[in-house]
C-alpha cells in the first residue's frame, strides 16, 4: 500500500491514508448516533508536478469531498496531506486560510460559480489581489486584460456582468479566476458537464492549452471517462471513498484492470450505432451502496458480477502494482492478475 504514494519531502502533492468522515450527530430525542458518512475512506495518492490527474467516479463516490479535502475547504478526519514538502494537514484552522489561494477550483455550473452582482473585472481583481495586494488601477486593468485574453475573451468586456455572457463564456471567466491567484494546483470539478457538446470541446481545448503552455498541475474530476481520457495524463478511479484503480490514462482506458472500471467504460454510450449494437455491456446490478454503511472488505463485492469469498467480504484488500505504474485494488475477484 505504501508504495503507491511518493516521498512527501520531494513529491509535489502527497496524500497518505486520508479519511474524511462526516458525523451526522445524534438523534435529538433518542440520543442515538445517526451514523458517520465515510465520504473519503483511506485514500493514498501522489500528484506529480505538471501533470493532469483525472479523477473518475460516479456521484456519491467521494470525488468532490476528496477534492475539497485537498483544497483544505474540508479538513480531513485523519491522514496526512503534503504540498511541496509542507504538511497541510498539520496547519491550524486559523492559519489555513492563507494557504487556500494555492488551490483554485473550476466548478461545474458556470451559472452558479460567478457572483451575479460583480463585474468580471471585480471578480478577477479580487482573485489577483490575494497574490498582489498592492496593484494600482492601471496595473490591475492590465492583468485582468491579460487573463481574459489568455482564456479567449475580449478584454473590452471586463466591465460586464456574468449574466451578459453565455455558459461557455462564463466558464472561461471562471477559468480566468482560477488562474488569477497563481495557484499551485487547479482542481477542475466536472468543468464541462453542464455545457453543450459544441461548447464542451472549446473548453477542453482551452484547458489543454493552458496546461501545456503554463505547466499547470491539475486534478480533473469527471464522471465521463471519455472526457478524462482526453485531458488526463493519469487516471484514478474512485468508488465509495476508495481509489480502486490508478494508472496512465492509456492503460486505464485501454486495459482496465478493475471490473468496475470495465463496467464504467462499457456504460459510456458510443456515438456509433453499429459498434453500439455489437458490444456487450457490463450492466452492474443495483445502486451505489450508502457511504453511511459501506460494505466491509472489498468495497465492490455487493455489486460485483463475480462472487467474492468470505475473506474479501470482511478484510479490505490492499492496493497493488499489477503492471509498472498501473495500480489496482488487490482483490482477486475484481481484478484479473496477469498470468
Amino acid at each position, binding site marked *: 500500500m505504501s508504495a503507491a504514494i511518493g516521498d512527501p519531502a520531494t513529491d509535489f502533492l502527497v496524500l497518505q491514508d486520508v479519511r474524511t468522515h462526516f458525523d451526522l450527530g445524534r438523534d435529538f430525542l433518542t440520543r442515538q448516533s445517526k451514523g458517520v458518512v465515510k465520504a473519503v475512506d483511506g485514500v493514498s495518492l501522489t500528484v506529480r508536478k505538471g501533470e493532469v490527474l483525472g479523477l473518475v467516479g460516479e456521484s456519491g463516490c467521494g470525488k468532490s469531498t476528496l477534492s475539497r479535502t485537498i483544497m483544505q475547504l474540508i479538513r480531513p478526519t485523519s491522514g496526512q496531506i503534503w504540498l511541496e514538502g509542507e504538511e497541510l494537514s498539520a496547519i491550524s484552522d486559523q492559519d489555513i486560510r492563507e494557504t487556500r*489561494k494555492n488551490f483554485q*477550483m473550476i466548478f*461545474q455550473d458556470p451559472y452558479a460559480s460567478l457572483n451575479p452582482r*460583480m463585474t468580471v473585472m471585480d471578480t478577477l481583481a479580487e482573485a489577483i489581489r490575494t497574490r498582489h495586494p498592492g496593484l494600482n488601477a492601471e496595473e490591475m486593468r492590465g492583468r485582468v486584460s491579460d487573463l481574459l485574453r*489568455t482564456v479567449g475573451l475580449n478584454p473590452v468586456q471586463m466591465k460586464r*456582468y456574468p449574466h451578459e455572457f453565455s455558459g461557455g463564456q462564463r466558464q472561461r471567466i471562471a477559468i480566468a479566476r482560477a488562474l488569477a491567484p497563481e495557484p499551485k494546483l487547479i482542481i477542475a470539478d466536472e468543468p464541462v458537464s453542464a455545457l453543450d457538446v459544441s461548447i464542451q470541446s472549446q473548453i477542453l481545448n482551452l484547458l489543454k492549452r493552458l496546461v501545456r503552455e503554463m505547466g499547470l498541475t491539475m486534478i480533473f474530476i469527471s464522471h465521463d471517462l471519455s472526457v478524462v481520457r482526453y485531458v488526463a495524463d493519469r487516471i484514478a478511479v474512485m468508488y465509495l471513498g476508495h481509489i480502486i484503480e490508478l494508472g496512465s490514462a492509456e492503460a486505464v482506458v485501454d486495459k482496465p484492470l478493475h471490473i468496475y472500471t470495465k463496467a464504467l467504460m462499457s456504460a459510456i454510450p458510443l456515438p456509433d450505432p453499429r459498434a453500439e449494437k455489437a458490444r456487450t455491456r457490463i450492466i452492474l446490478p443495483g445502486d451505489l451502496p450508502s457511504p453511511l454503511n459501506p460494505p466491509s472488505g472489498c468495497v465492490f463485492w455487493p455489486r460485483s458480477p463475480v462472487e467474492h469469498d468470505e475473506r474479501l467480504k470482511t478484510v479490505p484488500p490492499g492496493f497493488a502494482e499489477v503492471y509498472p505504474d498501473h495500480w489496482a485494488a488487490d482483490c482477486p475477484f475484481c481484478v484479473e492478475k496477469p498470468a
Partner: protein
Amino acid sequence: MADLASKLPLSPAPITPEQLEQGSSLWSDAWARLRKNKLALGSLFMFILIGLFCVVGPWLSPYDSQAQNLFAGAEGPSADHWFGTDTLGRDLMVRVMEGGRISLLVGLVATSVSLLIGVVYGATAGYIGGKVDAGMMRFVDLLYALPFTIFVILLMVAFGRSLWLMFVAIGCVEWLTMARIVRAGVIDLKKQEFVEAAVSLGLSNRRIILRHLIPNVLGPVIVIATLTVPAVMLLEAFLSFLGLGVQPPNASWGVLINEGQQNMEIFAWLLIFPAFFFALTLFCLNFLGDGLRDALDPKSAGD
C-alpha cells in the same frame, strides 16, 4: 508556477478605460424594469411629493402648528386654512405636514434600524451556521415570543417616553422578520459555487458576507423594507392611540387621525385630511413594494 503572470501573453496594447464596454448590472436591469411599471413609478413619484410636502411645507406656511386660536376653533376648509382648523384653532394643514414628518421619520428610521440589525444579524447567523446559528436564532424566537405591547410599555416605564425610544422599540420588533429572511437567503446562497470560490481564495468571512452574500440577498430585503415602512407607521399610530407614542401638542398622522375620529361626526375634515394622506402613503409604498418585487425578481412576475 508561482510566476504564472510572466507566462501570460503580453498584451498587444494596454486597454484604456474608454475602450471598455459598460455592462448593465442586475440593479440597472431592475431599475429599467421598474421604470416600465407605471403604477410603481407613479407611486414612487407620489411618495416623494408627499415627503416634500411634509418636509418643506411647514417652512412655507404662515401658520405655527402649535399656535392656538380659540376664536378660530374647528372651522371647515377655507381660503385662509385650506384644510380647516382643529378644535383649538390650529391650522390643520401645518399639523398634517408636521405629523407627516414624524410619521415618515418613524417609518424610515425604524425601518433602517431594523434593516441594519436584521441584515447583519441574519447574514452572520446564516453564514456561520451550526451552533452559533442555532443560538442566534433561538434568541430571535425569544424576542418574537415577547408580546409587543408589553415590551413597549416596559420600555416606556423604564426609560420614560421619548420619540427615540419609540424608534428603538419598533426597530427591535421589526428586525426579527428581516433577520429570518436574510438568514434563509444566505443559507441558500452559501451552497452556491461562487461563495465556495470566494472561500477558496482565502477571503475573510467579513468580506465574503459583505461582498458576496449581502448584495445577493438585498433584492427581497428591499421589497420587505418598502412593505415594512407602512407597517411601522401603523404601529406608531397604534402606540400613539394607546398613549404610548407621540404626545400632544406634537402630532403624527396617527395622533391626528385619533383626534379626528373623536370628532368625526361634527368636524369630518379633521379625520378626512390626515387619513387621506396616511392612506395615500400606505398605498404608494405597497404599490412600490410590489413593483420592486416584480422588477428585482422577474421570474416571479406574471409576464
